């Protein structure tokens, strides 16, 4: 069995009194697309910077394929980074930028040229050799930054919110492309993002960060369907959290549970309740028509408000808007609730 690509052993990083990263243990497997997801200030970027070597842990060890790299400077680590602002060298051509790592390693010019060509093909920018970074669009710079890192064949590639500056369409396109490139080169990718959709789209596994600690690690489906904590349930997608009296009335158990808005079916007020379903009665307070789907805010008889999403498969905006202020019965499968710890 091969060593994990990255292993954190009780890693902490303090900035003065602030514990940016607090005793994190983490294992990232060889060849996986791993995302670190969390709001800003949750410690995900600090973790990435410690892997790259730009920051040193206050305590703990970082292993790269079994080798302790905690005390190695960035230029001695076999990892490369794609920066949030791309960090392309403005005084060099695209060829100079991509070939930078090889030039430092004193790879002969002809060999360097051949590999730069190969990389430009990989990121679909053939013939861009002599342009300057300032002449490229955001998406193109992004690709150059990727090529510049990949040409060194790092053991691990670190990506620090690289899609943050791109517009939505381009971002979605790059998500697909990044994933394809990762499959092609087979390198372990560690991807930092605060965008849950991005993490769900690309990752093999996701770690959700909060206040310097990891809340949950799992596959996208696990994180989404079975959030371990209320924080994960709220940060990844939208969740309805139900606890106390209402929870007891619905499930017969006062433990808090979450249910996703799209799992809930909006039925008529006196529809029959199938045996495998839970139900709750209430009144539709708000109808928000969003084209592809409609979002309903339903006030339960107990006082809580639940979010329900239904696709507009057959209905039009005229139909859905009629639901406002109507009594309704919410139904969802018993499999679709998820009990949460604390």
């Amino acid at each position, binding site marked *: 069995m091969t060593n994990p690509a990255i292993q954190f052993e009780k890693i902490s990083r303090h900035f003065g009194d602030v514990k940016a990263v607090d005793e994190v243990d983490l294992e990232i497997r060889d060849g996986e697309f791993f995302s670190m997801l969390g709001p800003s200030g949750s410690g995900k970027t600090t973790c990435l910077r410690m892997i790259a070597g730009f920051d040193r842990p206050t305590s703990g060890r970082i292993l790269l394929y079994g080798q302790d790299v905690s005390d190695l400077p960035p230029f001695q680590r076999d990892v490369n980074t794609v920066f949030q602002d791309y960090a392309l*060298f403005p005084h060099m051509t695209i060829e100079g930028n991509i070939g*930078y*790592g090889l030039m430092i390693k004193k790879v002969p010019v002809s060999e360097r040229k051949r590999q730069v060509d190969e990389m430009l093909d990989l990121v679909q920018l053939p013939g861009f050799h002599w342009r300057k970074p300032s002449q490229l669009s955001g998406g193109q710079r992004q690709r150059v930054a990727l090529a510049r*890192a990949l040409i060194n064949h790092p053991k691990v590639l670190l990506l620090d919110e690289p899609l943050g500056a791109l517009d939505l369409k381009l971002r979605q396109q790059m998500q697909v492309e990044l994933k394809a490139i990762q499959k092609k080169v087979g390198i372990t990718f560690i991807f930092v993002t605060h965008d849950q959709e991005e993490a769900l789209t690309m990752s093999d596994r996701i770690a959700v960060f909060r206040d310097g600690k990891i809340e949950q690690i799992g596959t996208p489906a696990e994180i989404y369907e079975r959030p371990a904590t209320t924080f994960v349930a709220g940060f990844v997608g939208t969740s309805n959290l139900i606890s106390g009296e209402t929870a007891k009335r619905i499930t017969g158990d006062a433990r808090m549970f979450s249910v996703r808005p799209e799992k809930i079916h909006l039925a008529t007020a006196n529809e029959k309740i199938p045996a495998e379903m839970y139900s709750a009665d209430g009144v539709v307070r708000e109808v928000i028509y969003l084209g592809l789907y409609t979002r309903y805010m339903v006030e339960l008889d107990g006082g809580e408000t639940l979010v329900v999403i239904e696709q507009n498969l057959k209905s039009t905006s005229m139909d859905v808007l009629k639901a406002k202020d109507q009594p309704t019965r919410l139904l969802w499968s018993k499999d679709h609730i998820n009990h949460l710890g604390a």
Partner: protein
Amino acid sequence: MLTRISTYFYRRPNLSLALLLGLPLLYMFVVYLGSLFALLLNSFYYLEEFTGLVVREFTLRTYVTVFSPTNLGIFGRTAGMAAAVTIADALIAFPLAYYIAKFASRRARTWLYIAVTVPLWSSYLVRVYSWKLILAKEGILSWFINLFHMNFLLDWLLSLPEIGGSSLSLSPIGMFIAFCYIWLPYMIVPIQTALERVPKSLIEASGDLGASASQTFRKVILPLAYPGVIAGSIFTFSLTLGDFIVPQSLGNSRFFIGQAVYSHQGTSGNIPLAAALTMGPVVIMIIYLLLARKTGAFDAL
């Protein structure tokens, strides 16, 4: 009323622009370039030796005088001094500017910035005269050197031909020291500004791609700071070329361009020769700027 005026200007952007730029442009062309042109014109007149009057007819005979061995010597000496001062200032300024731009904390940066610019608040004459005292034979510098028993080094320096002299304040070395001090802020500020514009991520990226600190410095930091160095060198070089106070107060009796111009237009009233001599630094600066442009220093501007 005010609303109507602003609406009026809003509808006539060209008029607003003309009003804004009119006065500065008038100043630029009439006073600034005009005086340069007058200078050029004067350099083609000549001074009648016997009458001591300026003859206003086109001639190149003043320029023939400019190319006399004495005047060429003055040009060479001044340009050499300007080059030496520029190089020394760049070497002193770079580490300091780098520290201010990249390592100092916010507070430290403010204080260092003030420390760099504070000398500019005091009169330049006062500073030159204080250097005269510092560098004098019985001055504080000699006393200090004496304290560390380094007299032999000072004596050896002063015994060098061309740049030596009887004491530091009476030698070109002393003049060089004073020049370096006086123009140093003009070198530090542009370099610091250039370095501040280099994002930290570029330096990290270089290290990430395998470059050691010295490689990063040579391949990334230095090329990006280069426009700042060039901008600073334009200041130090041209200011040294034209200065006449420092050569008059320090150093030996050999003339620098500024002094020569000063004495020609003042005591002997030879304005054509003073004008022609002034064209020297102008030409030298034009050549310097063209060379700087060739190296790509202005690409980043």
